[in-house]
């Protein structure tokens, strides 16, 4: 028994060194989480990104595997994020008429949504008496991670913490958006999608595309516009309140 156990551990350690194990685990965890999500009739808290990430964290933590070792395998999936953002131009082009028609709503919702996202984060940071580094890291949380990192650095925050908080915001939006919009009786896919894009960037946009391609296209525009808008407005707001 002891021998077979050490044998198993040895094989596991051997496989853990190679990228294939973690790549396979990531795909498997996601497929299983998606099954669970469909099976639960899309229960919001069982969001596939949330559940599969938690499950993988649990596996890594219990086997003592460092994130870097995991990422050696998972990087092949992570790499596809760049190409995936490029290809979002295609659905945007498909829905160009609807987007152009809603341009005034897009503009107003960008200014209001982007400002509320930043102001509420700064205001709550003051309320919870976060130190400057923490507050600067959470302020750009509604901006897509690469841009959020740049903004946080400008404000005096921690770059990697900013990326983490952006990802967590994306997941929380993917979980909360649908129940929230349903509770308020909002049925316009354009507005639902755009709000999710502005507030919850990539992960929110990915979620929106699973529900409606109109929502996804508006989310794409919201994500892109808020990256620009926040990069300009957040430093001003932050220094005004925290400085």
């Amino acid at each position, binding site marked *: 028994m002891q021998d077979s156990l050490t044998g198993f551990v040895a094989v596991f350690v051997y496989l853990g060194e190679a990228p294939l194990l973690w790549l396979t685990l*990531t795909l498997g965890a996601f497929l299983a989480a998606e099954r669970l999500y*469909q099976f639960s009739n899309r229960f919001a808290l069982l969001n596939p*990104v949330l559940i599969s*990430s938690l499950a993988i964290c649990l596996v*890594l933590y219990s086997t003592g595997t460092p*994130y870097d070792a*995991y990422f050696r395998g998972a990087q092949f999936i*992570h790499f596809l994020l*760049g*190409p*995936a*953002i*490029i*290809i*979002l131009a295609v*659905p945007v*082009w498909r829905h160009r*008429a*609807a987007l152009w*028609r809603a*341009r005034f*709503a897009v503009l107003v919702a960008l200014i209001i*949504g*982007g400002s*509320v*996202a930043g102001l509420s984060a700064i205001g*709550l940071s003051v309320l*919870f008496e*976060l130190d400057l580094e*923490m507050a600067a890291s*959470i302020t750009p949380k*509604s901006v*897509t991670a690469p841009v959020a990192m740049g903004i946080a650095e400008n404000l005096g925050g921690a770059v990697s*913490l900013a*990326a*983490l908080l952006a*990802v967590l915001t994306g*997941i*929380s*939006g993917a979980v*909360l958006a649908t129940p929230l919009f349903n509770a*308020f009786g*909002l049925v316009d896919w*354009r*507005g639902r999608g*755009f*709000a*999710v894009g*502005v507030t*919850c960037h*990539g992960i929110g946009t*990915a979620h929106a595309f*699973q529900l*409606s391609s*109109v929502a*996804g296209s508006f989310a794409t525009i*919201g994500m*892109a516009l808020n*990256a*620009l808008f926040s990069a300009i407005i957040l430093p001003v707001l932050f220094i005004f309140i925290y400085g």
Partner: protein
Amino acid sequence: MIEGLFFIFLFQLAGTALTALFGLPVPGPVIGMALLLIWLALRFKTPTSLDNLCDFFLRYLPLLFVPAAVGVLNYKDIIIASGLSLFIILIFSTLAALLAASLSFIWVARHLCPPIGEGQRKTRPSIGGAE
């Protein structure tokens, strides 16, 4: 498939190069997306190879965020130390922003730009079990 990938990588490369060249504050892929959009507008038709690849990517877009999300693991200490206040800020701020953006959008849209006839421009991605 390969042709579609070629186009995508080409535009990502161009976007990344432009970002590096001019020190733009926006990430390379976002510039690449804008460039692809301009190209589609000039061409006025999406190549079939891109159309097919697009549906595949959209279907599995959430999966691509999983490796980044697992990065939470690197921040156990911060999460244990001040996770609760960060969590509360994150949730309430997200709820407020979602409501502000969607309500303002829908309010303006109702007065200025009602949706095009429902279903006209709707192409839903396949959900579940279609592969």
